[in-house]
């Protein structure tokens, strides 16, 4: 009797539970839908009173504002869509430059923190603790207003070898120009890459067959370097450099990098380098001490121990958090709005919102752009992590 009752009530309980969970989820969905509907009707009423036409038609209209840094053609008569492309490119190029700077400095600092020289390690630790605990915006303002804006006028520029100049208007670099030999050198380089790839495949095939093959690195390097060098010698240099020249009150020629870009790149690099240094240090600490001791007892020099034993093993621990740090740096580029570097946030969330009076659509574009880049980069990082995890298994 009891057994029969239990078996009868078991499906009962599970049905009741399923019903309860269904009801709860339905209620949550209904509440969210009601909230969204309320927000949408409010927005419609608010926007209707302002008399703003909705939709994304504005993207095809001329933007009408200038952008001070553009990597692709853009003028005031270009469309909003074009302005979006310019702004996204500005954000990406800033993130890229800062990532390169932060990685180099961060790895150097991380290795310094584990240096056998106490003073050097303390110096790196001091750097990390100083930069990590100061707001990034404060650092950015310091570099922009206290350092770059206090630089001399073009006539008294700071100069590096008379080629690179730094003054209150920004950083002026030589401009690379295609020269007579550029076609031949590029073709030779392409041929070299094809040959090197073929050689690598051949070496792998040989190895799979016989287990022995020539040292691949030297061959591949030679294939990559020799053809372009020959083409250079035969057809002349591939690039001419247009040097900046002081004419009157300003420089003519060369590439002018805005001070806003320089300040952003410097501040982001130095700030993220502090976090990357900690990531690198944790990676080094994750390599068992015995590995270093074994390498030392084999007679390897400390530079070789770092390059061949510690770094390759530490990299496995370093890469995942490093990817997250890159994403954080990318998100931090939005501080550019504070000093007027024309990135996605400043141009769209700032200027375009004011000009179009369509904040909902414009902010949707901004948010989707950041989310899309974020997701794309993190998908790339995850794929790389999986590859590394597999290759070490």
């Amino acid at each position, binding site marked *: 009797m009891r057994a029969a009752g239990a078996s009868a009530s078991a499906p009962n309980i599970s049905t009741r539970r399923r019903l309860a*969970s269904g009801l*709860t*989820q339905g209620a*949550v*969905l209904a509440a*969210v839908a009601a909230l969204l509907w309320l*927000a949408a009707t*409010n*927005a419609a*009423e*608010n*926007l209707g*009173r302002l008399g703003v036409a909705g939709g994304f038609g504005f993207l095809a209209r001329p933007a009408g504002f200038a952008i001070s840094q553009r990597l692709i053609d853009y003028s005031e008569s270009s469309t909003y869509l074009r302005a979006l492309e310019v702004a996204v490119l500005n954000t990406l190029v800033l993130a890229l430059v800062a990532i390169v700077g932060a990685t180099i400095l961060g790895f150097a600092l991380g290795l310094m923190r584990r240096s*056998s*020289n*106490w*003073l*050097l390690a303390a*110096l790196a630790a001091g750097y990390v*603790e*100083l930069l*990590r*605990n*100061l*707001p*990034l*915006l*404060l650092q950015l*303002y*310091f570099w922009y*207003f*206290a350092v770059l804006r*206090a630089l001399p006028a073009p006539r008294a520029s700071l100069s590096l070898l008379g080629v690179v100049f730094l003054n209150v208007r920004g950083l002026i670099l030589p401009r690379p120009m295609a020269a007579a030999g550029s076609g031949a050198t590029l073709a030779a380089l392409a041929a070299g890459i094809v040959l090197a790839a073929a050689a690598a495949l051949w070496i792998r095939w040989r190895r799979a067959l016989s287990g022995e093959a020539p040292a691949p690195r030297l061959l591949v390097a030679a294939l990559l370097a020799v053809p372009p060098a020959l083409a250079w010698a035969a057809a002349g240099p591939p690039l001419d450099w247009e040097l900046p020249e002081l004419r009157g009150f300003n420089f003519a020629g060369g590439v002018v990098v805005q001070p806003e870009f320089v300040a952003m790149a410097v501040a982001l690099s130095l700030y993220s380098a502090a976090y990357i240094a900690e990531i690198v240090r944790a990676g080094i600490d994750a390599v068992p001490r015995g590995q270093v001791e074994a390498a030392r007892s084999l007679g390897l020099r400390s530079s070789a121990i770092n390059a061949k034993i510690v770094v390759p093993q530490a990299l496995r621990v370093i890469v995942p958090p490093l990817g997250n740090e890159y994403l954080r740096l990318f*998100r*931090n*580029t*939005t*501080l550019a*709005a*504070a000093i007027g570097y024309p990135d996605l*946030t400043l141009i769209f*969330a*700032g200027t375009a*919102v004011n000009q179009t009076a369509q*904040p*909902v659509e414009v*902010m949707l574009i*901004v*948010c989707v752009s*950041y*989310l899309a880049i*974020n*997701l794309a980069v993190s998908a790339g990082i995850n794929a790389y992590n999986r590859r590394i995890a597999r290759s070490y298994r």
Partner: protein
Amino acid sequence: MSAPALGFRARSFLWSCVSTPANAALTLALALLAGYWLPGLLRWALVDARWAGHAAACRDASGACWSFIAQRWPLILYGSYPEPERWRVDVLFALVLVAGALLLSRRVRHKGLIGFVLVVAVPPATALLLLGGAAGLPFVPTARWGGLMLTVALGGAALAGSFPVGLLLALCRRSDLPVVRGLAVGLIEFLRGVPLVPLLFLAMTVLPLLLPPGTDPPPLLRVVVAFILFNGAAMAEVFRGGLQAIPRGQFEAAHSLGLSGPKTMALVILPQAIAIVTPGLLNVAVAIVKETTVILIIGLYDFFNEIVAGLADPQWLQGGSAVLTTGYFFAGLVYWGVCFGLSRVSAGLELAKERRG
């Protein structure tokens, strides 16, 4: 494990500085650099500094210009909060100090209760105190809030608000109900994928449109909403780590004692999880302190922006680079002190946890 003898440690330290000729040269260079810079910094900050007088006096000073900070001190602390009402701000500062001391002290017990009061009861009471308009306190609009007071109010609101939001999001993310879980994951990923500055712009421009016509929340309130959501998502990830660290047996034991689901969470799981994630929560607090400076972009005058505005004041512009450097040095000193202190506490808790095993 006994510590090596002092003599041995001193000898190995010295040896680490001069083990090879290159190493010895490096040590010498660094020591010379430190010997040059540290006294220089002290001279700049103390000996050659100007402690009083106007901007003109700072122009040819070779040291810091502390008179800039001294003369703008009320603005830096209170912004344009009306002078007769500033005692209310002083109460806020005292409250923050007491709360910090209570939470960080090792002797004080019942920290859960204190934290609960700080999250639930203190923020509304403080908002009432600062805003006024009731209980005989004159009304002070948020447009007049500024300086350190605004930084503390925003940081405190963000911290107190993002704690429950983060907890709720983390619990929803673990829910058995796919709809609830999906909504939580979507919201967290959105808030972690979009940077803070665009979120602030979103809160400034779009949020008012979504509210019933006629409601126009002040900029500070919009900023607080953005801060709470943004840091709530960050805290949700911290809480998630803590909840995952609780062994399954704890749930099963609570269940077999006959505790209901909510009671299991409140009495068994959460107290353990929160203890585990305290260092992580402190790291979010450090991030919040640093993030508060961002409201400068929206045009609000927090502690940092009050100093920046002072530097742009025509009167102090005459002071030249001495004033500029002093302003950034002072702002940096304050933020660094707070953030470094908090991160030390966080690291200390982490270390204590590792020792306990």
